[in-house]
């Protein structure tokens, strides 16, 4: 750091280049174009444009914050430079696109994208405006870095909420139209696409103010009540949550119920995989196999098409669960001695084997081959068939409730603690007298049973199963959601499922890019926050051992110094 001056500018330059490359790749991958039609603020700020200024903005905030030792003016200049570099890169590519037909290679380098880059203007004024907008994004980011932490946090949160509300506008309409009284407020806040300008300002101010004021108070610990009172409070909270969950489908309608069904399915599977990966630390990449086995067992035992058993759904359910659990044991036995990477690959192989067998002509008489199995029974209560999305929601809800309860009770049980001991250090766990074989097999069997339950309900939802849908991607979905949510954490699974399964279902444009974003999210999460969004306490401790040690050492050292 001999030349602090130069290093700051160089950092700005580098960050600008990175921002430019990121913006460029977002455009070329097609995200900018896909989100262009979705206005955040009506006819003023479409999501596509927002994506283009996102990178320079975020990087300007962090770069300007890093240059904290410089004068405010210099820090603003850092943001400006960063934005200009980023804009220049975009302009350069646009100009190259003028000379060469980039589209023959990059399918998204379309005239539409060029229009977005140039704000629909002619080449020269459009590009100048692009440069200016990028520069402003950098400048705004840098000026945010000048604010106090509290104010900056408030502004950032307000921006995030603004974008979320704008994105989800169409979905809120569906709900609001069912509930007349709030319609006028809604019309005031929202336009036909996105927020109105007035609405945007109102949302921004209200949220920023709320966050700012709340941030002012010192965080008060929740008052500790006497145990009896605490119990009552807990019961009331649980009761309210249950009532809300029960009322969701009639309030939200069919479309949302369907989304919630998908979320429910993935919560079921996530809770199962969470036991295998999160509790016991056995990375299972073939988890889809158990889901397939559950669904297929349900199909084989209930479908009149195959005509083997013709059981009802509830009669076949125990069979499906037992078969899944047994499959878990079958997989568990040979992989007992493996750890880490090898286990991941073997389970992946196992998942593929199950899929290929289900697809093969060889087993067609039993499993339907590539045609799958149709006319699978749906659950019935008395004469009521739980067939539509809203009714199936309750089946998923019941499944999730049971599974979450079991997982929660298992977590601190003797078995749960044995799993975690094996996860932390297998050799030590064995030395402490934990039987590795039984413990690991139980993890596989319980995880497989949960997944099999998910598969059984899914089979009822679709009334059919196809091997084509039982791909590796499903395993990755489940794995991603428990990692994003926080491995080993039960609320984390729910948060992860809502974020990774719910959001893409709600945002159609997003669906096309979901795996791109999942992949980036997995990498980003591992690099920056490996414990997940809603971490389990013990894992967080494990992953941040050194920092926490340093933290606790500091006050201790200070106390020591004071004592001396």
């Amino acid at each position, binding site marked *: 750091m001999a030349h602090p001056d130069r290093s700051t500018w160089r950092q700005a330059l580098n960050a600008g280049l990175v921002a430019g490359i990121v913006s460029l790749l977002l455009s070329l991958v097609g995200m900018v174009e896909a989100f262009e039609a979705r206005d955040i603020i009506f006819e003023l700020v479409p999501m596509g444009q927002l994506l283009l200024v996102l990178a320079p903005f975020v990087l300007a905030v962090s770069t300007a914050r890093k240059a904290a030792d410089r004068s405010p003016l210099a820090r603003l200049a850092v943001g400006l430079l960063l934005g200009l570099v980023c804009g220049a890169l975009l302009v350069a590519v646009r100009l190259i696109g003028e000379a060469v037909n980039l589209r023959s290679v990059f399918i*998204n380098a379309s005239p539409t994208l060029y229009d977005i880059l140039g704000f629909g203007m002619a080449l020269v004024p459009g590009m100048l405006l692009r440069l200016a907008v990028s520069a402003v994004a950098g400048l705004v980011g840098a000026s945010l870095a000048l604010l106090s932490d509290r104010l900056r946090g408030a502004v950032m949160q307000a921006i995030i909420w603004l974008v979320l509300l704008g994105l989800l506008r169409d979905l809120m309409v569906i709900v609001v139209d069912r509930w007349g009284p709030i319609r006028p407020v809604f019309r005031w806040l929202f336009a036909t696409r996105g927020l109105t300008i007035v609405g945007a300002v109102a949302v921004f101010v209200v949220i920023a103010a709320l966050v700012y004021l709340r941030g002012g108070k010192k965080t008060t610990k929740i008052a500790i009540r006497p145990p009896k009172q605490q119990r009552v409070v807990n019961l009331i909270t649980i009761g309210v949550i249950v009532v809300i969950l029960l009322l969701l489908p009639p309030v939200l309608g069919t479309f949302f119920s369907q989304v919630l069904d998908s979320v429910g399915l993935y919560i079921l599977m996530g809770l199962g995989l969470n036991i295998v990966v999160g509790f016991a*630390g056995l990375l299972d990449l073939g988890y889809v196999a158990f889901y397939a086995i559950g669904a297929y067992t349900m199909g084989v035992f209930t479908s009149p098409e195959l005509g083997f058993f013709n059981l009802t759904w509830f009669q076949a359910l125990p069979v499906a669960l037992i078969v899944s659990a047994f499959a878990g044991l079958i997989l568990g036995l040979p992989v007992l001695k493996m*750890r880490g*990477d090898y286990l991941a690959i*073997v389970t992946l192989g196992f998942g593929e084997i199950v899929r290929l067998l289900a697809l093969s002509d*060889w087993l067609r008489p039993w499993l339907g081959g590539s045609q799958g199995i149709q006319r699978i029974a749906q659950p019935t209560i008395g004469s009521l068939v739980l067939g539509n999305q809203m009714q199936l929601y309750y089946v998923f809800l019941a499944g999730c409730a049971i599974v979450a309860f079991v997982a929660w009770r298992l977590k601190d049980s003797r078995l749960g603690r044995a799993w975690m001991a094996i996860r932390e250090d297998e050799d030590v766990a064995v030395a402490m007298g934990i039987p590795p074989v039984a413990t690991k097999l139980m993890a596989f069997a319980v995880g497989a049973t949960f997944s099999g339950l998910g598969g059984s309900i899914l089979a009822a939802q679709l009334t059919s199963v196809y091997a084509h849908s039982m791909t*590796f991607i499903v395993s990755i979905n489940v794995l991603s959601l428990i990692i994003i949510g926080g491995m080993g954490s039960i609320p984390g699974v729910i948060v992860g499922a809502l974020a990774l399964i719910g959001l893409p279902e709600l945002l159609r444009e997003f669906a096309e890019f979901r795996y791109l974003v999942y*992949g980036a999210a997995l990498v980003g999460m*591992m690099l920056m926050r490996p414990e997940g969004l809603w971490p389990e306490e013990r894992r967080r401790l494990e992953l941040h051992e050194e920092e926490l040690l340093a933290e606790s050492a500091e006050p201790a050292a200070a106390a020591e110094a004071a004592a001396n």
Partner: protein
Amino acid sequence: MLRNWRQRITLTDVVIWAIGLSILVVVVIGAIATLRSGKYALETWFDLSMSGLALGGVYALIALGYTLVYGILKMINFAHSEVFMSGPFTAVFLAEALKRSGFFDSNPVVSLLLVTLVSALVSCGIAVLLERIAYRPLRGAPRLVPLITAIGASFFLQYFFRGLYGSGIRAYPNIPILEGFWSVGGLRVFRTDVVIIISAFLMMLVLYGIVQKTKMGKAMRAVSEDKEVAALMGIDVDRVIVVTFALGGLSAGVAGVLYALAFPVVNFYMGFIPGIKAFTAAVLGGIGNVPGAFLGAMVLGVVESLGPNLFLDGLGIPSANQLKDLVAFVILVFILIFRPTGILGERLAQAKA
């Protein structure tokens, strides 16, 4: 003595060995039944073996990337299959452009070399970027962390290239001089197969030479023995790791073009299955071992090519070729269970996670 022996064998061992033996019995019975039925002529077996060897050559070049990285970082570079995909998926545009300009037809060999070079460079670049951005910050993290990162990177790259180049299936232009076959003693030898086998073999030889004979190769072996000590001896560990990823990427890029010559399906998903199979090959030969990767890949290629017809046909399983991938996956699972050190490997696969 007897008591000791009985204590060491548990119920799980018995079950596993029973499963293994029964599969072995099925394979042998199937093979005998197929051969006795005389359904396939000698020529068919020869054709299948040759295409198996060609496939094995491609797997060998991919497997090299897995094996080198595993040797040094003790991690499975799960995204290597996407490194393999990125090269040929990019170079196909060059091939198409050359075809349009007529250069491809007038100078097929030069064009092919050019395309291979571009493919190798792109794969190499992606591999190096991957190491720099995703893996380097995680050195020393708990073992699951880099593995999950690799899975995430794999998905990111797949869908990134899908967004970039589209989801359609592309193919390399036909090369007339590679079409057809030579007749050797009444047997057909397809030119493509021969080219693939020879280039894969040469490429392996060169890379093996680099690892064994050059100073950088020596440094690589030192780092794979012990990173800390190697660093103390003045070896720039980061640089060695970058070179390792670069070499793996280069050979994967070449493998990609060879693969695309044999199977004209170039798309964003082309890496997944060959990637897993190449990993199988690397494990089969003994991961961390370069000649082992070659041997394992050849064995896997041939078994996968012959297997469905040889083992399954005789058992009366319809459309046995559908189960080609199944054979490879079963081999993978069983190798990892029964001999995780592979054919030539000495490294302990059960090493502490």
